[in-house]
């Protein structure tokens, strides 16, 4: 199948290095400490953060840092075919773990000993790149909850199809079977916290693809920063003296 047309356009009309439309909204869940909705094109993810709060299971309590927990679910209506998925299948457990580890790397857990932070992410619409959308949503929700972090974590995926590197794959491109590189970075510290790929790629091409994904992450970071800044200013202005 032809994923990049001779004119250099992808199936959804994007250029190879073009991202999908980003949209973010803070405070979607009123009872949570922090929450966000993050959209990358048709992929839509909601994240809610509860905490830092008292540890629910005493045996899990850590005396020098906060306990981070993460739960990833996909809504039944998120995919094309409506399927009832069992809770805690391999895929969602793996992604929960990935998100938890990525977020744990940036949260200053030592400032909140003997407490726990719960991150819940749910995919409302799946159109490829749910992993990165979840990480971006979780970052926003954590920042909204006022949890101290080293840096914002942002994530973006990139792939390689028709011998072209493609940024931010959608579902059709994702299911083409080509390599899919998901990268998560700390933009300020310029460090990588997440790198996943389940295919083989020659070294030089991989470097290109990863470079592209990193650029994507930086674009996401700029957008997230704007959203947070706007929100902070708005809250402060409304509060008044």
């Amino acid at each position: 199948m032809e994923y990049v047309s001779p004119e250099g356009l992808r199936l959804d009309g994007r250029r190879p290095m073009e991202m999908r439309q980003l949209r973010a909204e803070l405070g979607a869940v009123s009872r949570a400490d922090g929450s966000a909705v993050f959209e990358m094109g048709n992929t839509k993810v909601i994240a809610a953060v509860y905490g830092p709060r008292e540890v629910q299971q005493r045996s899990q309590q850590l005396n020098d840092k906060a306990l981070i927990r993460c739960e990833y679910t996909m809504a039944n209506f998120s995919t094309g075919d409506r399927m009832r998925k069992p809770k805690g299948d391999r895929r969602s457990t793996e992604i929960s773990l990935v998100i938890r580890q990525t977020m744990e790397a940036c949260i200053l857990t030592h400032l909140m000993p003997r407490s726990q932070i719960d991150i819940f992410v749910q995919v409302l619409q799946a159109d490829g790149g749910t992993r990165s959308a979840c990480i971006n949503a979780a970052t926003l929700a954590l920042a909204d909850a006022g949890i101290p972090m080293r840096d914002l974590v942002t994530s973006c995926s990139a792939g390689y199809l028709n011998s072209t590197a493609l940024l931010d794959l959608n579902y059709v491109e994702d299911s083409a079977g080509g390599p899919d590189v998901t990268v998560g970075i700390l933009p300020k510290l310029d460090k990588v916290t997440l790198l996943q790929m389940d295919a083989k790629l020659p070294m030089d091409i991989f470097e290109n693809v990863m470079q592209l994904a990193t650029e994507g992450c930086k674009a996401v970071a700029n957008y997230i920063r704007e959203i947070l800044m706007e929100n902070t200013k708005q809250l402060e202005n409304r509060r008044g003296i």
Partner: protein
Amino acid sequence: MFTSEADFRYPLKAKATISASHTESKSFYSRFHITISASHTGAGFSILIFRYPSLLKAEVVISPTQLHLTVIHTKRIRDRTDSFRKLGQNFGQDSNTILEMRGMELSLNQTQKLRLQRALELLESLSSGTNSNASVTVADTIPVNQEDGVLKGHGTTELEGEVVATVCGVIERVNKLVYVRTLRARYKPEVGDIIVGRVIEVAPKRWRLEINFSQDAVLMLSSMNLPDGIQRRRTAVDELNMRSIFEENDVICAEVRDFMRDGSLQLQARSQKYGKLERGQMLAISPYLVKRRKQHFHHLESYGIDLILGCNGFIWVGEHVETKDIMVEDEPIKPELQNNKSQISMSLEEQEQTYTPLETRQNICRIANAIRVLSTLGFSITLDVIQEVVDLSSSKGLDIHEMLGAEFCVLVAEREAERRSLSTRRKR
């Protein structure tokens, strides 16, 4: 086939023509083809379309001068022509800013939306003069003069010689100290704060309270006055009777005593004004909206209501209770208690006490709703402001339930903008 014209004011300054045709119809799904052609070109169009929420699924093809959409409407639409006229109009309107507010699902009509927007813009212009550029987000560099020496406070960290924020908030500087004051975050206790909390566990010699902190607070049996008012050692009997003082799910008012060595929080309730709160409502709002003041207990005499603004964002609105100092009044009461007749009258009095008059209950609800409106708008909550909102609602003759509607919310925003602009003018 239907054609409608819409004026896209934002983000593009362009006039667009929407033409739509309907091709396929099932019982619940209808498929429409919409072509939008405009004087403006470019992919900027897609922004506009995706902001429009009813286009749940849209296939978009962008050509240099046209944007072609295939929309699947999930609603059954009776009059398609009419719905498209609306669609065309809404494209024009919704492409302006969509007002989104935290935790609020208000259906504002167009005028209300504009009024609210104008009030909020006024508020923004009022406060932007005082502290512009003071807001930071996570990982923003805080400008400091390194030569003077800097003390890094909460919400900051050092990275390659720069001071960097770790939370979103507002920069505060006190002499050499630089810290970031967070806005939406959990409560950060300070010794001496007055807080409202809920008992979640009765443990040996202590109660555990949920107070919106990262851990549960601890109220020791030894750090509160016993109901008989006598100062003495707490015995095992007292410990067994702890549930007669506070039970699970009771709402309590107390003061922050100190932090224990392991970082957990100790409370005390060594005065008659602290203790169990009954016959009222507890509201949970963001703690940044409550400012630390000299007075947190307020008695609103005209309403017969006690208002406690807990520093942790828990607010108590309840029927007024006379705080009597048992230590002094105890002795004259005791001999009367021995009399059997007066005991019966006492129990009757107690029965009357448990009944809250309807008017008081309505007042409680009115004040509680005023606080709810203020907190959804994100205005700081003080006694004056609450009173003003309550007065506004009663002067407009609004019912209690109407206070949570869109119209009143807009009114409150306008009133607040007016009030703040007056106070800033006075300062000048």
